[in-house]
């Protein structure tokens, strides 16, 4: 049982050497194991910033508030320590790392997170079956990390990592964006497998309610103006679908 808490979080995006802009203006959110929280909001409301701030992205700086995982201060951890503490971020724009093979990267990553190197044969079996579940061709294992992958291929690989790393809390940043319906189903099944197998707590950041047809959210939060503007159950997503974000955009501005 894991408790993940964000309290009064404020953060800036670092634009240049001298320039910064406050994006998060006091975010409060608590996620327990097994729960799925959808974070929905208009473009530019700070959803991705929240994801990056939690992961420790170098272009964002937390200025106030705290992030705790089972009471441990996440903000005092380095990026890799956060991952080893059980946090995972599926990125909206996964990074291409030329020349580093996917398989080598995944093995290094699994070794770091699990604390010991998995047996080569066991790991390669696990990798192959997980890739198969996400309809990823086995040839991708020898390619460079995300190198030349299509948008959809990158998203599948993010979920592949989610399934392999078995985090306690997963933040999925617009994992559904740019996917056609078939790919969306495959990716959603991967997320649901992770939920069933590991009881992971999920923060599902999305612009559209479409993915919520496949991945059931227990809570829906509307994110606007750099904070959670309203919280509710799944019905809130339906309301947003029909009414749009207009009323929150106005309120946040």
């Amino acid at each position, binding site marked *: 049982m894991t408790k993940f808490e964000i309290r009064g979080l404020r953060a800036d995006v670092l634009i240049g050497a001298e320039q910064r802009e406050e994006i998060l203006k006091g975010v409060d959110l608590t996620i327990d194991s097994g729960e799925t929280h959808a974070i929905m909001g208009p473009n530019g409301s700070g959803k991705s910033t929240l994801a990056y701030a939690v992961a420790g992205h170098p272009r964002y700086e937390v200025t106030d508030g705290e992030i705790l995982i089972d009471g441990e201060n996440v903000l005092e951890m380095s990026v890799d320590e956060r*991952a080893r503490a059980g946090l995972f971020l599926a990125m909206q724009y996964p990074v291409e790392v030329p*020349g580093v093979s996917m398989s080598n*990267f995944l093995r290094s990553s699994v070794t*770091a997170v699990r604390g010991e190197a998995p047996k080569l044969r066991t790991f390669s079996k696990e990798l192959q079956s997980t890739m198969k579940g996400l309809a990823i061709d086995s040839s991708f294992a020898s390619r460079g990390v995300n190198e030349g992958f299509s948008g959809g291929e990158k998203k599948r690989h993010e979920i592949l990592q989610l399934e392999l790393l078995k985090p306690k809390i997963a933040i999925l940043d617009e994992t559904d964006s740019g996917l056609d319906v078939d790919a969306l189903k495959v990716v959603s099944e991967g997320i649901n497998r992770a939920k069933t197998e590991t009881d992971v707590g999920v923060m599902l950041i999305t612009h559209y309610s479409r993915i919520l047809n496949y991945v059931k959210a227990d809570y829906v939060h509307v994110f606007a103006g750099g904070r959670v503007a309203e919280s509710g159950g799944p019905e809130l997503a339906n309301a947003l679908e029909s009414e749009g974000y207009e009323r929150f955009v106005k309120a946040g501005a």
Partner: protein
Amino acid sequence: MASPNIGVKEHSHGGDVPISRLDTHGSFDVDAFPVPSGREEEWRFTPLRRMRGLHDGRDAVGGAVKVETRAPEEVAVETVARDDARLGTSFLPSDRVSALAYSAFTEATVVTVPKEVQVSEPVYVKITGVEEGDAYGHVLVRAESHSSTTLVLEYGGSSTYSDNVEFVVEDGAQLTVISLQDWDRDAVQVSHQYAKVGRDARFKSFMITLGGDLVRISPSVRYVGRGGDAELHGLYFTGEGQHHEHRSLIDHNVSNTRSRVEYKGALSGEDAHAVWIGDVIIGEGTQGTDSYEHNRNLVLTDGTRVDSVPNLEIFTGEVEGAGHASASGRLDDIHLFYLQSRGIPTDEARRLVIRGYFAELIGRIELPDLRERIMDEVEEKLALHE
């Protein structure tokens, strides 16, 4: 200047010599080129004091290199005297050092791949400095029509060395050359590699520069038939105090030719200096040229210097593609962030990203032994600062 491109000396056989905007001073006559002062555009990045006279000839004392070759039986490898009629027919020296080297060598190595022969094993030519002092050489590689070969040209040992290497890739032939500059730390090399690419011919070059005190190499490509294709891949790791300079020239003087130039380097240590000059000319009246050149430099420590200059000169409106890019900088913190966000500790993430940077290019070399050897040497250089 006396008509530099025509009727030059007895070495110039045939009149179809290259004439281009950037390269109008070709000549076998050493005195056609003034002694460089260091202020000229083509010399301003090179520390002439460290060239030990290769540019003016004043220090010419007898050094020696040993040339070893290994080739499958279908390939002819000969050592010939300097008056062999096949030498010096595919190029004109483009600067004083090249002309000096051509005037000074005593024996040349000639590799001939007979027409339509698909060579199974690579051809090796290894040049090793064995006696201190200036040494000069000449290599001619002739890939006859529709043949296919891979050649490994390796430089090692200690020397003050200058040569001209001719690659003649006849119609429909494929020639892949891996040129490995693996000199001892104190060596000086100034070389020119002249490739002449025929109709539908493919020339692929891997320029791997790791050793030496000063290495300056000028690879050039000129096309003599449509459909010619040239890829120049370069990799250098410039360590403390080293000067590595690569100056490529692609002369798209024929229609429907393609070129790709991608040089990647890393620098580490005080006074490591890397220079990349990428000249591309798309000639007047040509059509359908497809060209792209790219230089990247990974700066690993303070105290290094990179000069990266892409030059693109286009004299026609009928171009299919022409572009260039140059980027030099530190390790990308977004790469590191991605790996670290998957739990990989900082040091290991750095190691992975740096190795990936090299592996991406080394992986294109189709000889596993050589790939491994180059990666090992890169590891050794990395170990110095990690």
